């Protein structure tokens, strides 16, 4: 009896709770609508706060002070970097295209075999064939120098982290901050300290791309087993010897992985650095966007995509170990090795094997002759050295052949016949065709009415009401709502932080802009859900669809984010709607991926049970699979929100508004304080939403017992 009563009480309590929370939310929403209709104009922070809190002026005063005190030093650094950059750029631009291509292809051949080398050859030829060779070289120079510098500084810092626990503890928050900040935010202070052009771009890129190499160097060295170190010490190695002869060589795979990540991050930022005056593919794309030249922008974007894939594959080939084959099996050069069970594949590969053997024979022969000549020359002076050098040359025949070929090309170019710039007749450019196609589509009346219809529907029924709602809602109400939300989901401490951060945004007098940014982010995320979740469900049921999806999503995540402005501009022109659309395209991949992941993670037992109880596919999906996939979906929400925030910084290029536009205006007016306040505002909003949604994911997981 008591038991029954207890359960009854509990259900009552539960139902009460079930009604109280939504009830409160409903009341709050109604109240907010009431407030919105009450207010005459957009809500602004009280003037006595904004007038007293002149963050912008403080930053600008600080800048003026620093300009006098430390600018000479920072300018000296940037002058050195600039000199290095010009040197590398001149080298790449002055060498013939054949030389540069060979420089890229030969290492690829050494590490990745014919397949990778062919890919890299085609990629490099593509740059030339669309007429972007020079820009590609500039991007390559910027990226190359930033990667070299990042690796040097990063490895040193990584080693220091691995040697001292205290240093590591100090570095950790710094590295965390470096990775959380949207990349664009680095560009503002970089411009402020180091000027405009290549040098600040390289330095900003270094900051952005160094964390992985520092982390992975540290990790790699720390993972060397203690026994190995003890053995080394027991054999009488000093600390330095242990470090350089044992720990670092053993950590090399991990370091190489860091280098690979650094390269990818550097490429992403180098393209973005066009906003502070860096040259290269990024500026080609920007100019194309400015001219609404869809074809050219698309070609530039493809060049960047190819470059990213080339370096990614090359880095993976360098850091992955070659699998050793059993001695009796035939080595495959082009086809997948697993196909060696098929006789036809073996017949195809046979001549390739002979060709490979033939070239190996010739080149090792050349190097042997060269090595013999060198060693006999040196043996006139010292026999021991001659032997070691001869041996060294013979062991590295591939490498020296490569060097010989490179010198051969540059000798031919300089002394026999100038190869010159990339032949213009080799033209694969399709920009005119694409632009013409787009043009014919955009004057098509049916197409115009469709796009205009979508545009005005979204603007009238979604964008404008929501913008109005958030901007007209009194600031204290919005702050209170967000603070309560973060209290309920994270905790008291974070609630206080939220209040302070929002107060900062308000006090900087950018409240309206912040609300517009928030509104466009939330609407794009909403639309991402509406579009992404069905695609994810579809993909989780069809393997083939999922495969296509994977490829597309991978490509989407490699492209630098302002490439997404192009297709939108193509069909919808500029404006707030286009900005929204570009945000959706950029930030939809995580939601699709995590829907697929969430649904396919649900163990098949559950769905089997459901089916055996007579549940239809739809019922299984909506009642069993979907609820269990919720944590994964929330995770997707989190990532999508972060990407949507990152996108806000580039959308002003096609008519976006809000904080992103403030950053742009600040940059254009050289008002560092204004740009910084808006940039920080975006970061803070992103941080608050990130924390709330992460906490929510955790709660959902716990509730489901995952």
């Amino acid at each position: 009896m008591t038991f029954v009563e207890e359960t009854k009480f509990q259900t009552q309590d539960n139902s009460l709770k079930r009604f109280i929370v939504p009830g409160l939310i409903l009341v709050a929403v109604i109240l907010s609508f009431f407030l919105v209709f009450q207010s005459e104009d957009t809500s602004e922070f009280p003037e006595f706060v904004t007038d007293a809190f002149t963050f912008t002026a403080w930053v600008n005063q600080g800048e003026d002070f620093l300009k006098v005190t430390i600018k000479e030093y920072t300018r000296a650094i940037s002058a050195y970097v600039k000199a290095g950059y010009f040197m590398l750029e001149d080298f790449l631009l002055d060498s013939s295209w054949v030389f540069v291509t060979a420089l890229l292809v030969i290492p690829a051949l050494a590490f990745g075999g014919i397949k990778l080398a062919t890919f890299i050859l085609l990629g490099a030829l593509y740059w030339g064939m669309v007429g972007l060779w020079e820009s590609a070289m500039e991007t390559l120079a910027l990226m190359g120098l930033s990667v070299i510098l990042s690796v040097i500084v990063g490895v040193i810092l990584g080693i220091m982290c691995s040697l001292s626990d205290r240093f590591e503890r100090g570095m950790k928050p710094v590295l965390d901050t470096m990775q959380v900040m949207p990349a664009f935010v680095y560009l503002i202070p970089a411009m402020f300290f180091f000027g405009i052009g290549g040098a600040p771009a390289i330095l900003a890129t270094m900051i952005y791309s160094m964390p992985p190499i520092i982390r992975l160097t540290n990790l790699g060295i720390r993972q060397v087993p203690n026994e190995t170190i003890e053995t080394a010490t027991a054999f009488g190695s000093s600390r330095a010897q242990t470090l350089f002869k044992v720990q670092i060589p053993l950590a090399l795979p991990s370091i190489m992985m860091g280098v690979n990540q650094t390269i990818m991050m550097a490429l992403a930022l180098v393209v973005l650095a066009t906003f502070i005056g860096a040259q290269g593919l990024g500026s080609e794309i920007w100019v194309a966007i400015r001219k609404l030249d869809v074809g050219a922008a698309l070609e530039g974007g493809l060049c960047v995509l190819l470059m990213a894939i080339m370096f990614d594959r090359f880095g993976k080939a360098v850091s992955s170990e070659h699998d050793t084959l059993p001695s009796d099996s035939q080595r495959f050069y082009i086809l997948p090795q697993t196909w060696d069970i098929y006789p036809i594949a073996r017949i195809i590969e046979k001549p390739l094997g002979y060709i490979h053997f033939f070239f190996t024979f010739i080149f090792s022969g050349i190097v042997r002759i060269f090595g013999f000549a060198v060693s006999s020359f040196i043996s006139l002076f010292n026999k021991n050295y001659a032997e070691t050098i001869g041996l060294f040359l013979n062991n590295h025949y591939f490498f020296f052949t490569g060097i010989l070929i490179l010198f051969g090309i540059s000798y031919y170019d300089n002394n026999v016949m100038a190869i010159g710039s990339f032949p213009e007749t080799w033209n694969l450019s399709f920009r005119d065709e694409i632009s013409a196609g787009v043009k014919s589509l955009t004057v098509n009346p049916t197409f115009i009415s469709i796009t205009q219809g979508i545009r005005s529907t979204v603007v009238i029924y979604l964008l404008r009401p929501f913008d109005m709602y958030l901007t007209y809602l009194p600031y204290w109400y919005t702050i209170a709502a967000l603070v309560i939300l973060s209290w309920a989901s994270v905790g008291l401490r974070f609630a206080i932080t939220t209040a302070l951060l929002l107060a900062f945004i308000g006090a900087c007098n950018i409240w309206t802009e912040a609300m517009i940014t928030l509104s466009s982010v939330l609407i794009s995320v909403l639309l991402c859900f509406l579009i992404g979740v069905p695609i994810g469900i579809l993909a989780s049921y069809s393997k083939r669809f999922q495969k296509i999806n994977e490829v597309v999503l991978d490509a989407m995540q490699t492209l630098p984010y302002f490439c997404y402005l192009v297709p939108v501009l193509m069909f919808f022109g500029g404006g707030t709607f286009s900005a929204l659309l570009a945000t959706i395209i950029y930030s939809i991949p995580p939601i699709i991926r995590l829907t697929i992941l969430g649904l396919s993670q649900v163990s098949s037992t559950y769905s089997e049970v459901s089916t055996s109880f007579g549940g239809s596919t739809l019922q299984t999906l909506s009642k069993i699979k979907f609820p269990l996939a919720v944590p994964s979906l929330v995770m997707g929400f989190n990532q999508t929100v972060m990407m949507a925030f990152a996108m806000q910084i580039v959308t002003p290029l096609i008519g976006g508004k809000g904080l992103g536009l403030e950053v742009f205006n600040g940059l254009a007016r050289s008002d560092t304080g204004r740009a910084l306040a808006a940039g920080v505002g975006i970061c803070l909003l992103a941080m608050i939403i990130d924390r709330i949604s992460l906490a929510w994911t955790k709660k959902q997981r716990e509730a489901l017992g995952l």
Partner: protein
Amino acid sequence: MKNSLFLKSFVALILSSFLVLSAGTAYAKRLTAAVPDWTGGEITCQVAVAILEEELDYKIERIVFPSGTGLWEAIAAGDIDFACESWPSYAEADDVMINMDLVYDGEVVKSYNGDGSINAYTTGIIGMSDYYVPKYFVDANPDFKDWSDLNKFKDQFANAETGSKGKLIGCPVAGWNCHDQKRLDLLGIDFTAVELGTEVAALAEAQGHYDRGEPFLLYLWEPHFFFGKNEMVGVKLPAHKDCESFTEANNWQDCGTAAWPATGWAMDYTMNYMNPDMINSPEHADALAFFKKMKFSNTDQAKMLVRVGDDGLSVEDAVAEWKNSTNEWKAWLP
């Protein structure tokens, strides 16, 4: 062994790069220039760049950078050496940073008393900006006389994004300092200025309206290729009058309805502007002489604008075509 091979090849590549570098030709004189963000400016700049590169043996690095005060400061700091075709009534830094007279045809057209961190010389282009409506709109509404009648017709100019207000396709780039919304508010015109981000986006929007025969209000300037294909009529904004206090330093304090920005634009004697240390160094005497003599004409620019804007030529090709067809520019050589 594999990794050491990688490291060694890496080092060798760097070393070989030095070798090849020492063999390569070094450019004698190198300057950086900002590429303007409107077609006319791009053409003027390309004219200067083509002459500097082809006749005076320079190598010019062209940097894409939004125009505005940031660009002026970058030039003063020496990050960028020069920029082309600044329109004085758009520039906000000119009074602060230039300390010299602007000379056109031997006459002083404007004198500056700034701190001298920027030097400027006229380009020869004289610009005029206004708000325009299509001619078919004026023909259909004979009682539309000038800007003061805009409110009567604002419903025809409204669209989904502006609501009940009319739409002005405004100055597309924030850094141009057009103060469109401020002007509309001061003059009591119940319109919203829409900022589309780029010149081309604004023009595409305007062309769309024109092709559909809809009324629209467009900010534009002369010389421009848009006028070649489309008949437009200016709305005759009040004549330009300066407002001393309307600067960033004075927190944009306006002078009411009588003066800028509640007026139209002044006639602009456009100028190329540059870093004084660079241009006055003996090394760049040729460049200085060229900038002093340069006198590009509106008619030439207008012709090239049509080639670029309507015929789809690249700016480089249009300038090369002009340079091959005339000897005018030979008079600008030192």
